């Protein structure tokens, strides 16, 4: 969050208040004192709440992450690298994840641009239906996604029949895993772009077309530069989710070691084969990727002053 309008005077807020009861302070220099500080609590309660927040934060997030990295490096740095780069199947799983995620993200980016343009620049019958369909993957359990793909290609439908007839490898192979990942991450970029496009409004584009620009010129010269940062943000989140997808991929992959195992699946396998700390090492690699995502996200938010759109925010990470 870029702006925190109420906490620019920390010391004043924590100063004790000699005259009145603890609830209303008297120490601000700007406005009528009692009024400014009536928007905050006594230092005791403040400290208590901050302490409680830290307790939950550390308990839920901090300790597990710390544990993950301590275990991953418990054998030293050399063992860490060896367990990742020395294992052919682990390397293959990393390669596979780095194949699936970009493909899924790329397709969802193209789709996101199309759909967001459609939904923000035109009003037409059936628009709500499209919006609902876009949101559906947020609500559907990834397990159900996997099941759907298994049924779709599993032989009883005509899709399965033709896949089989034409000898196209789909299930237990990369295409089904890409499709599962695409389904699960489908709404992220669209949902990121819609508010951005709404906010910018169509005026510049209308001006461009009335001056004789064609569709392509308008898109690349006006629209894309305007939404660039929002798009980048969406791509980032979509990518993080695509890398970590587990359930839908687990159901359709067939789990052939070294061939259809993505990084999260490989972590589970290593764990079951007692290959500790190799399992922690790979898991920590995934965590490092997550930190990378957060870092990039922070850079976008702070340096480029991209203000994230409230309301939609909570849905984004799902």
């Amino acid at each position: 969050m870029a702006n925190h309008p109420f906490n620019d005077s920390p010391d004043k807020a924590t100063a004790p208040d000699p005259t009145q009861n603890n609830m209303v302070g008297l120490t601000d220099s700007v406005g009528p004192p009692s009024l400014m500080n009536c928007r905050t609590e006594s230092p005791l309660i403040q400290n208590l709440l901050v302490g409680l927040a830290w307790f939950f934060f550390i308990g839920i997030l901090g300790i597990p992450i710390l544990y993950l990295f301590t275990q991953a490096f418990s054998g030293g740095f050399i063992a860490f690298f060896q367990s990742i780069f020395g294992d052919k199947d682990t390397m293959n799983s990393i390669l596979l994840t780095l194949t699936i995620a970009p493909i899924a993200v790329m397709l969802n980016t193209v789709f996101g641009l199309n759909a967001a343009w459609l939904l923000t620049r035109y009003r037409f019958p059936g628009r709500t239906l499209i919006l609902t369909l876009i949101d559906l993957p947020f609500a559907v359990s990834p397990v159900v996604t996997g099941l759907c793909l298994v049924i779709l290609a599993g032989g009883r439908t005509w899709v399965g029949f033709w896949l089989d007839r034409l000898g196209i490898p789909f299930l237990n192979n990369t295409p089904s895993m890409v499709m599962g990942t695409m389904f699960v991450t489908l709404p992220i970029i669209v949902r990121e772009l819609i508010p951005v496009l709404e906010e910018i409004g169509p005026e510049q584009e209308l001006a461009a077309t009335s001056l004789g620009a064609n569709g392509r010129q308008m898109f690349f010269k006006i629209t894309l530069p305007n939404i660039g940062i929002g798009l980048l943000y969406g791509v980032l989140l979509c990518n993080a989710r695509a890398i970590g997808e587990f359930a839908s991929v687990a159901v359709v992959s067939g789990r052939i070691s070294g061939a259809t195992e993505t990084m999260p699946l490989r972590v589970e396998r290593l764990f079951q084969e007692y290959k500790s700390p190799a399992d922690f090492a790979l898991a920590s690699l995934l965590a490092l990727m997550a930190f990378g995502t957060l870092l990039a996200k922070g850079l976008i938010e702070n340096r480029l002053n991209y203000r994230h759109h409230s309301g939609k925010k909570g849905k984004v990470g799902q």
Partner: protein
Amino acid sequence: MNRLAPKVLPGFGLTLGFTLAYLGFLVVLPLGALLFQALSNNPMDFFQSAFHPRALSAYWNSVSMAFTAAIFNTFIGLLIAWVLVRYKFFGRRFMDALIDLPFALPTSVAGFVYSTLYSERGWLGEFLGQNGIYLTHTWFLTVLVLLFTGFPFVVRTVQPVLEELDGDLEEASAILGASRLQTFSNVILPSILPALITGFSLAFARGLGEYGSIVFVSSNLPYRSETGPVLIVSRLEENAINDASAAAIVMLLASFGMLLLINTLQKRRQANG
């Protein structure tokens, strides 16, 4: 924008075609296959599998765990959002930046770490074990993992609303002699309540469908701690694909209902704000 717009801005047909084809291929086709599978059976069989006692207990487990976790998430999320917006303290930016970690970290990694951390050999499991507390594979640990995956939803929906909250009302309330607690419950809470409810439903919906983390920490006892998604996978492994798709349809309807609810809430919030 009015309906004349398509004539003004180019690209309506192209984007419509692309969007429809993409959604059709990726969303409608697979979900249609599921419906086809479920409906191609005798409806009696369908209901029998969908409301098989094992399936019923799985739905209940999913709902109760997700609900409990979402309630806790609402409190924890509100607390953290409040602290982040209202106070300045050491490490605030650090905390703010890391809140999003559960969004970026694969949930299976979370499940894996939690299950080892609370096992007899893990830090917390060892410590708790010395005090006679064993959490591994308990209901409690599942809820704990759902806290990890769910609390950022609440933080991130409540935070912006808290930031934009109009200070005048609070001041007025204080001038009129309300205590801080009264101001909170009568002035602040009502204005952030829609956001809280949205955050709650997002966390709840996430908990309902969660698989990657739960499969590591849950005891997966049929009839007892098996959740909906775990049941579906388990049915698939038992080669009972009709039972799996029946349960999936029920889960799908439930999540669809949640989606409509969330969207209505969001719309109302936007209309109000």
